[in-house]
């Protein structure tokens, strides 16, 4: 897919996105992150029930050449892991905001959402990289 940063998401400067849905959020990595990593061949997912902490690593994604921590844009508890992304990590490259989502969490502090970048600010951040 072409470079894109959807308007309905909030972004973390470490190139992660969050789709906030009430008290829950779906998390993933941005187009920029997957492009920089290259073809992903492994997604080391957290356990369901694990606690993720904003700005802290909660998963790993690996390309043929390199491994990278995935940083949590928000804090909470993992409710669901995207098994399709585990089984077919290339899905994360192909559709980073759709079928390539990583985890669904229950937010522990909905107030954190305000600290994330809006799409415009994140696009400016990417342009600076």
């Amino acid at each position, binding site marked *: 897919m072409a470079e894109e940063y959807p308007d309905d998401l909030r972004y973390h400067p470490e190139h992660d996105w969050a789709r906030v849905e009430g008290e829950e959020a779906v998390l993933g990595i941005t187009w920029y992150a997957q492009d920089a990593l*290259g*073809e992903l*061949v492994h997604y*080391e997912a957290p356990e369901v029930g694990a606690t993720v902490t904003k700005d802290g690593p909660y998963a*790993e994604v*690996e390309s*043929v*050449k390199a*491994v990278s921590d995935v940083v949590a844009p928000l804090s909470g508890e993992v409710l669901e892991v995207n098994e399709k992304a585990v089984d077919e990590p290339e899905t994360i490259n192909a559709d980073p905001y759709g079928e390539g989502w990583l985890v669904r969490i229950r937010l522990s502090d909905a107030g954190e959402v305000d600290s994330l970048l809006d799409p415009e600010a994140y696009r400016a951040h990417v342009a600076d990289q």
Partner: protein
Amino acid sequence: MNATLRRTPLYERHVAVGARLVPFAGWEMPVQYEGVIPEHVAVRTAAGAFDVSHMGQLHVDGPATESFLQSVLSNDVTRLSDGEAQYTLLTNDQGGVVDDLIVYRLESGSYLLVVNAGNREAAYAWLKEREARGTEVRDASDEYALVAVQGPHALERLDLPEAPAFTHAMGEVDGLEVMVCRTGYTGERGVELMCPEDDGPALWDAVLARGVTPCGLGARDTLRLEVCYPLHGQDLTTETDAISAGLGWACALETEFTGVDGLRRVKAEGPASRLAAFVMEERAIPRYGMSIEGGGEVTSGTHSPCLDVGIGMGYVPAADATPGTELVVDVRGRPRRGRIVRKPIYRKE
């Protein structure tokens, strides 16, 4: 920072097509064009081209060259006739590996050594220091471009005749005179084409125009690891000996060369550890430097595009190196199971 990186004669070509460039052994090199996996697959199923101009070329000439090379290289260089080549090791006093290289006999008393980019200075200095009367070592690396064309369709795409592996001859690709070497680092049939630096871009263009896929160092690494070709600096170092590395076949222990006594001893007593190949059975990608339970270490690891699993090589205690033995790799704190396999990891069907 990049100002200090060297560039090959093909650098502009790589930039023009949007290759991803990375620092490698002091060079700014393409790690990938379209992607590591499609490039890997192109080489396994059709043909791929690699810019390997960063590798070093040392000419060694003079009437005493054969005996000089025999005294510093592990393999038996006297077995070479004109037009033949050989994989060999430059060994230190302990039998450690200064570099692994290919020696080409051009004619009597005239040899070409193609050495690793990262060891060019070390190999040259090593040889120059020991250079005997009647032989002269010259670093000609900057005079040549080197393009590897590898894959089952490589010869057909280039309209080059078949020839035995580890031979070389002058030939022509679209009007460009090249040294055609039947060597490579992918486990596929193919050639390495050497030409004067100035002809490099035209040669690269000609090769690609014949429908060969440009490939970066990323695919070069996955291809060589699937067939268990060692990488100097990881699988081979000045601290590792050739016997433990499984390169006894490249050591003519009946000849006299630097470090041969140590190698004979390791051979006689049996190595304490061996460079073993393994395949992960749990989902995980082994990486260089990860520890292996029971006292081993991963020296090369990646995701195999052909097998779609994590693969690697590493030194393990000799008793644990038998194919079929289970091993556990510490993947950033997570123990992950794999199994020792016979080399090569990947075999053509």
